[in-house]
């Protein structure tokens, strides 16, 4: 696995330069492109494919790109996975917003092509503006069951929350999900951690529907949320202030094996409801959380270590990081430099690439695996 990066403002040149930097092998099997939403995706992919040719390609717009040189904005990071031990099959499914589950099932079908390999993983990239991503996992799980782990992230747009894009071979897609089924003769490792601390007691979600959390412990959800966290005055009345505050205080949804984080995208100031991107079902138990740079950074080490542990005694050749943009918000520019340095240190010379996401995928155990405000690391050996 090799990684190339370019900060060239010209999308074609940036794509070509980054791809050239990543093309260390003759027998490339998969090209991953993570690029700033500010780039022209069509020009970008033309630049990349002019270098990589017909090697299967998937990519996503980001809210910040990750590579060994540290984090960046307005850059392109191209990762090439290659070598005789790998087999890859890439699938795309469109119209995601109206058929998440079916789309998940469709991209999962690509795994059949790599069933001959000893180890397999399904890498997903999905449009981060589409809700109900857990349904994608259900669709995938319905096809694969526990046989193949799932990893990946959702495309971003530098927190503009307007539109994102995905790249599939030479196509530019939105409202879609892409799956790269990767087979290998060496194991993969997946690590997940978030670094948010629970504040106070658990709250029952007493009323919720369609991503709107209406009541917590039978009180208006927004008031419970802001009151218990001691939010600043402005967050009660100003939508932007609220969003800034909410970015650092996700909900932790109780699960038997730990918590799944839920990003609060906004608030309905009139009805006092919290607006979530992912499902927060009625009857669930949630915690309010907080985080600081130390807690968020320590999660980085945990996620990397648990991914590397799954490789046994094999050294990693690369680490792919799918890191929530909200963690970036807490860490700040200096913090994310430290974070990426930590990932590098953990990788001990392995290639590092990734991006800041609008949602993360990781299923290793059980049947669920859509996360918010979390870091997911895929270790490749």
């Amino acid at each position, binding site marked *: 696995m090799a990684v190339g990066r370019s900060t060239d403002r010209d999308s074609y040149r940036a794509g070509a330069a980054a791809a050239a930097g990543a093309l260390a092998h003759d027998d490339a099997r998969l090209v991953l492109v993570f690029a700033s939403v500010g780039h022209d995706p069509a020009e970008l992919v033309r630049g990349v494919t002019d270098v990589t040719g017909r090697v299967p390609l998937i990519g996503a717009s980001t809210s910040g790109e990750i590579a060994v040189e540290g984090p960046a904005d307005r850059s392109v990071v191209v990762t090439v996975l290659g070598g005789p031990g790998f087999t890859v099959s890439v699938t795309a499914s469109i119209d995601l917003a109206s058929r998440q589950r079916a789309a998940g099932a469709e991209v999962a079908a690509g795994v059949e092509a790599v069933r001959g390999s000893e180890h397999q993983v399904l890498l997903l990239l999905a449009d981060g503006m589409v809700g109900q991503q857990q349904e994608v996992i259900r669709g995938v*799980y*319905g096809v694969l069951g526990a046989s193949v782990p799932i990893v990946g992230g959702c495309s971003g747009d530098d927190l503009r929350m307007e539109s994102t894009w995905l790249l599939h071979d030479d196509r530019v897609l939105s409202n879609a999900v892409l799956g790269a089924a990767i087979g290998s003769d060496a194991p993969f490792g997946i690590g997940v951690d978030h670094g948010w601390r629970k504040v106070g007691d658990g709250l029952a979600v007493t009323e919720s529907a369609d991503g709107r959390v209406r009541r917590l412990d039978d009180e208006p959800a927004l008031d419970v949320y802001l009151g218990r966290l001691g939010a600043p005055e402005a967050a009660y009345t100003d939508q932007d202030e609220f969003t800034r505050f909410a970015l650092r205080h996700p909900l932790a949804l109780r699960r038997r094996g730990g918590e799944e984080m839920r990003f609060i995208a906004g608030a309905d100031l009139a009805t006092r409801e919290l607006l979530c991107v992912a499902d927060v079902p009625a009857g669930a138990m949630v915690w309010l959380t907080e985080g600081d740079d130390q807690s968020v950074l320590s999660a980085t080490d945990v996620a990397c270590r648990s991914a590397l542990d799954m490789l046994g005694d094999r050294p990693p050749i690369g680490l792919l990081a799918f890191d929530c943009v909200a963690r970036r918000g807490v860490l700040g520019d200096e913090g994310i430099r430290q974070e990426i340095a930590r990932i590098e240190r953990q990788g001990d010379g392995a290639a590092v690439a990734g991006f800041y996401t609008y949602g993360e995928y990781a299923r290793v155990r059980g049947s669920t695996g859509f996360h918010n405000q979390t870091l997911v690391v895929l270790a490749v050996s």
Partner: protein
Amino acid sequence: LTVTALHGSDTYAVGPAGSLGSLQLAEFLAVVSAYPDAESATQAAVERAAEALEAEVGAAVWPDAATVVGFPAGRAPVAELRAAATQRDRLLEVPGAGPCHIAVVPLDTEPAGHLLLARAEDPFTGEEVGLMRAMARVLALTLVMVGTISAERRLRERSEQQAEENDHLVRTLQDRQRLMESLSEIERAIARHDPIQSILDTITTQARGLLGADAALLRMLDPDDAGTLVLASANGVAQSAAQELARVPLAAAEITPPSFDRADLPGGLCTAMAAAVRESDEVVGSLVVASSRPDHRFTPADRQTLAAFADHVSLAVTDARTVQAMHAAFHDALTGLATRALFLDRLAAAALRRDRPTVGLLFVDLDRFKIVNDTMGHAAGDALLVQVADRIRGCLRAGDTAARFGGDEFAALLWGADLEESGRVADRIIEAVRRPYLVNGRQVYINASIGIATGVAGECDADDLLRDADVAMYHAKRNGKGRRQVFEPHMHEELIERMLLEADLRRALERDELVLHYQPIISLDSGRVTGFEALLRWHRPGHGLVPPAQFVPLAEETGLIVPIGGWVLAEACRQADDWRRRFGPGTSIEMNVNLSARQLEQPGLVAEVAEVLARTQLPPSALVLEITETVLHSNVEAASATLGALKRLGIRLALDDFGTGYSSLSCLQQFPVDIIKIDRSFVESGRDGGRSTAFATAIVQLGQMLNLETVAEGIESTEHLDALRAARCEVGQGYLFSRPVPADQAAALLNRT
């Protein structure tokens, strides 16, 4: 379990099963009941059950059908799953997950099926299986209702005009909606931890209303008689009739019509049905609905509805037990304060918080509590602790946490408090604890010693903070009790020094570093040596000869005084016997040995003394055991019995430091004492215009009246000696005659006389 509460003294998070189960069931119910057809409802149920219990595999299997997730599509081993549903003690091999544990519950459908989950690594708990059973019930209910609705719908399609059937369809839909709402309401009540009785009453009310019954009864296992069910809740039954129903045999827990006749029902009720309440496969109760209309017939759908309510009874009871267990685990049973575990968790959280600049910690230890506990009994001690806990709680600010660490140790966590604020709270606690208590009709006084430590939130370490406060408390106690002490870094050094001292002291015995010096006891008339008091010294390597004041209190505190005291007794007796042999059997030398409170408490003390006497062949009359009067106060009856037994061995007892305690005279009356040793403070006359001398004279006279020997201590000058002679005191010891000296020098003194 993770305790996550950060605020308030009585809030805590509950464990992974209990209320989480009811919440997960609520979620499950909402999702599954929303599907309009059997196939998608089953698919959703299997998926959600697997997700809720983090299982890799979920399956609903029937003899003729199966819905499975967790295996690659089309490759589910359906036959193996069917077999697994009936042969439970086996593992299921799941590709990608490895060998998985299996849990199976029945699906009460026609034909009968099973809901099965398989999970890698962790086996399923009884509570999880309980949750699965409730989920299976919800699925079965949904399938029955979906079946009824689609049948009705087909009927309706055939005959649009049949208004009655149309109504029936509407009613069925409404019933389903009402049932789901009703179960949701119960689940929310469980999640809120409403009082258990109120939840059970809600269940009987809802069951009665929804099933159109005239009465609903809930009976649960009698905790004292596992074969009998007793009434736990009743709705629609008169109080008098409920009494009649109070007890039925366990066998009546689950009976369906028509076999359920009037036998167990009060007057007026004739048709009934019952569903068992289960916990981990055991029947623990029975939910009964009954009608007074002879023509009333409960349908199979009604039976399933009742069973769903019975499952919710089980959830509620399990949850209540979990909450109770959680509360018990994190709250001191006696005082209701936080336990050490909960306190430490909150302290760790407080130390991390950055929104409050500081955190204050008080370590509170009661002074004199042990005396109350020992003299008035443990029940009185407990009653006192409860009052103390209430007072400490009353001194805290909103949001602070008080804890009992066990014994008479308490702690308080003060959110955002700096040194000044912590000091104010500590003062309030000292004042509050100092006020008199009424225990068993008697007024009791105790004090609190408090150590204070504060830290900067986000920078300090919870363990360090606690240790600092503990060290400061120890200093407060040493400096006079009933006071507060702020932690200072040098205290650590002192503590370390003390720990080193203790470690060395523990080794002192085996390394032969202890030695006895002997101070002669002199006949004031003749100047002859009549005996010796054995006094302990320690050759501590690197420190020279350590005087007892520097290590005996530590030995007392740590209990090391027991083995050391035993050694002193044996060595002194051996030495006395040696001298008797050397200077001839006629030499009447007495050996005085000090006895500590800890030694006196040892049940084997009398036997030990007897054994030493036998081994050394020292005549018992040559041994005098010295006891201070404070030693005797801790447990008068036991001390009196022990001293009596020692006296029966033939040894003599001396009351040391006589006159310094507040009940010296009562000691003389209560205990079989032979000798009074007049405290040195009465011998050092002159400073207070002769009052002490007068006191010494009075003690001597008292001794004469009671036929007790009096020994004066601390005679340092001829003036002392003259005054004591004038007071007709016969025996004494002090530097005027000799300091305590090693055995060979003591022998020389004997030689001289």
